[in-house]
């Protein structure tokens, strides 16, 4: 036996280190409950310089108290942290880097902080490991980015550490699992502490996975990111929505899907009970959704279009409505909705037939990104939902409809639809020769350009000009010409050969609105099932309780 090759290492160093740290806060804790006022001191003992720390925060729920407290630790004691953050949504998230507490960042989405991240990166105040899609980052928490400490948020905890996360369960189970079962330390901020498990509506995270809880000074922040006010939907969104329903959803009989957020998709949701009904599509399309609880889906649900919705996260104001529709939404025995971002991303990857998203830039081949000069926005879930999962083995009619060859071992393809106006406000063209992401990637020393959705995954590009059925393209050159055919008067679109466009329309490779029988005068806001937030409240029988900022009454 090669005994001399056997390592002499200790095999339980992480466990021993965890015990050491937990013992160090004995005096600051009452069982698992850490005192709010001495919490910074506790953090300085539970976290060690150089640690990998996962801080919960995504495009909805934010562990904002923990973020604030982490930004108050002494950088002489705690520095060089490697932060793992699904989303960077708060100023405090970047204060941690400016103060020298953390150095490296692996993340998915940055939204409101995208400009500041770009600046900090340019100033070498932070280093970026990679920009991920959500489940890609969660996956790495179990491989090469295993956390030493997890900082998460819950509505309620009992004194033993059982957590109630309710409609906003989101990322918590995945983050906690990666930490708790690898001898990391799990700390939860809660809005409310109760004495006993019986006082919790239900247990979403069991106590044995949680090391400490702390009562936050105020309830955690949630962004109502998925609420779109129907008043802001314009006739052009109605036009594009009608084109999508007739030219894609109905054509391919799409039964299961995910919608990215935006006014285009909000318009589609509000057109189902009106335009979709006129076309006789109820029961034929849009029955199963992997979707956040969009308030604009309420009329379609109430009219019987929707059978099921599984959610990544919650949405402020939708709680009572969802609890009252348990046949549609996933709910616990207490009645409240249960979300789970990891599982919903999996559902959106493997379970659904179509992803419809939007973006800021599309190049001639259909590659797209929301990363533009000075704006490192990240991706969130779009690259995951917006790709064809090659591991898929079940067939549906929509998936099979994408098959183009007679090859006996060919497979179908998920429908990946980019729905964009050719120009955005401020005369910014959406279609560009080269994505800004290419330059940004080079400037930031990234090994690959931060592309959100690759052109070869895209099956359809829909603009106000028309639909390009890219899955039918026979070559890259033809794909480029089909994109140009719907790119309007952008530089890409101006290069178009009008005879070739006519040929594409004849062959069904490109469809203009009139080819679909859609008249411009039909594109009226009056076609929407709801014209205001107040209409949505009425559709919900008063169960939807919108946040104050959306109330005009």
């Amino acid at each position, binding site marked *: 036996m090669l005994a001399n090759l056997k390592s002499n290492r200790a095999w339980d160093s992480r466990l021993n280190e965890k015990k050491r740290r937990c013992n160090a806060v004995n005096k600051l804790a009452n069982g698992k409950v850490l005192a709010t006022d001495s919490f910074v001191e506790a953090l300085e003992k539970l976290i060690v310089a150089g640690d990998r720390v996962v801080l919960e925060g995504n495009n909805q729920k934010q562990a904002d108290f923990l973020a604030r407290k982490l930004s108050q630790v002494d950088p002489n004691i705690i520095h060089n942290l490697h932060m793992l953050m699904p989303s960077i949504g708060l100023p405090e998230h970047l204060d941690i880097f400016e103060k020298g507490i953390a150095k490296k960042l692996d993340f998915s989405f940055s939204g409101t902080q995208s400009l500041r991240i770009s600046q900090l990166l340019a100033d070498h105040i932070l280093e970026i490991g990679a920009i991920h899609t959500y489940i890609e980052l969660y996956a790495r928490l179990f491989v090469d980015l295993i956390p030493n400490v997890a900082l998460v948020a819950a509505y309620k905890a009992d004194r033993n550490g059982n957590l109630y996360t309710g409609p906003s369960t989101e990322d918590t189970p995945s983050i906690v699992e990666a930490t708790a079962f690898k001898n990391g330390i799990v700390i939860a901020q809660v809005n409310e502490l109760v004495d006993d498990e019986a006082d919790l509506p239900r247990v979403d995270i069991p106590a044995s996975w949680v090391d400490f809880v702390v009562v936050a000074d105020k309830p955690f922040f949630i962004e109502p990111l998925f609420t779109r006010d129907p008043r802001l939907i*314009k*006739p*052009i969104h109605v*036009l594009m929505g009608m084109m999508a329903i007739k030219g894609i959803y109905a054509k391919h009989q799409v039964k299961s899907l995910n919608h990215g957020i935006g006014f285009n998709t909000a318009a589609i949701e509000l057109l189902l009970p009106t335009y979709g009904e006129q076309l006789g599509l109820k029961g034929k399309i849009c029955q199963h959704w992997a979707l956040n609880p969009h308030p604009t889906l309420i009329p379609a649900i109430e009219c019987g279009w929707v059978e099921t919705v599984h959610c990544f996260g919650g949405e402020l104001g939708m709680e009572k409505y969802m609890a009252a529709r348990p046949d549609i939404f996933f709910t616990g025995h207490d009645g409240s909705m249960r979300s789970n971002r990891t599982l919903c991303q999996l559902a959106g990857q493997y379970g659904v037939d179509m992803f419809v998203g939007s973006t800021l830039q599309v190049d001639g081949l259909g590659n797209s990104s929301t990363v533009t000069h000075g704006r490192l926005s990240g991706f969130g879930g779009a690259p995951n939902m917006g790709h064809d999962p090659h591991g898929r083995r079940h067939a549906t009619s929509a998936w099979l409809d994408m098959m183009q060859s007679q090859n006996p071992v060919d497979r179908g393809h998920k429908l990946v639809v980019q729905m964009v*106006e*050719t*120009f*955005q*406000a*401020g*005369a910014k063209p959406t279609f560009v020769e080269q994505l800004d992401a290419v330059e940004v990637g080079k400037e930031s020393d990234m090994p690959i350009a931060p592309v959100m959705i690759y052109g070869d995954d895209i099956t359809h590009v829909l*603009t*106000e*000009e028309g639909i390009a059925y890219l899955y039918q393209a026979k070559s890259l050159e033809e794909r480029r010409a089909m994109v140009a055919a719907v790119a*309007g*008067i952008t530089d890409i*679109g*101006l290069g178009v050969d*009008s005879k070739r466009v006519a040929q594409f329309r004849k062959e069904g490779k490109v469809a203009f609105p009139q080819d679909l029988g859609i*008249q*411009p*005068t039909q*594109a009226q806001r009056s076609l929407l099932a709801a014209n205001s937030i107040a209409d949505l409240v009425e559709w919900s029988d008063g169960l939807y309780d919108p946040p104050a900022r959306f109330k005009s009454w």
Partner: protein
Amino acid sequence: MERIELTYPATEKLQHKALAGVVGSGDLEAMFIPHQEKMLKIIIKTSVDGSKHRWQNLFNRFASLHALPMGTLEINDFASTPGVAKLRIEQVFEEANYA
């Protein structure tokens, strides 16, 4: 504010005056008045300076896909996107045809 005038040969006879769109940010108001001359006269008043080239491209493309109507088209533009502009122009011509 910028004022842009464009003229295109036109052949279609539309019967009616028509108005489409709204005065509001990101939108435009388009008014069509038919006449007997075989040309479409376009007068654009826009809040966006330096946009003449884009309007020319928009109408060149429009003309390549549609027969243009004989008349005057007045546009009051409040930073609409080319997509919104095209939709409003299509709407006003359609209204002028059937109103």
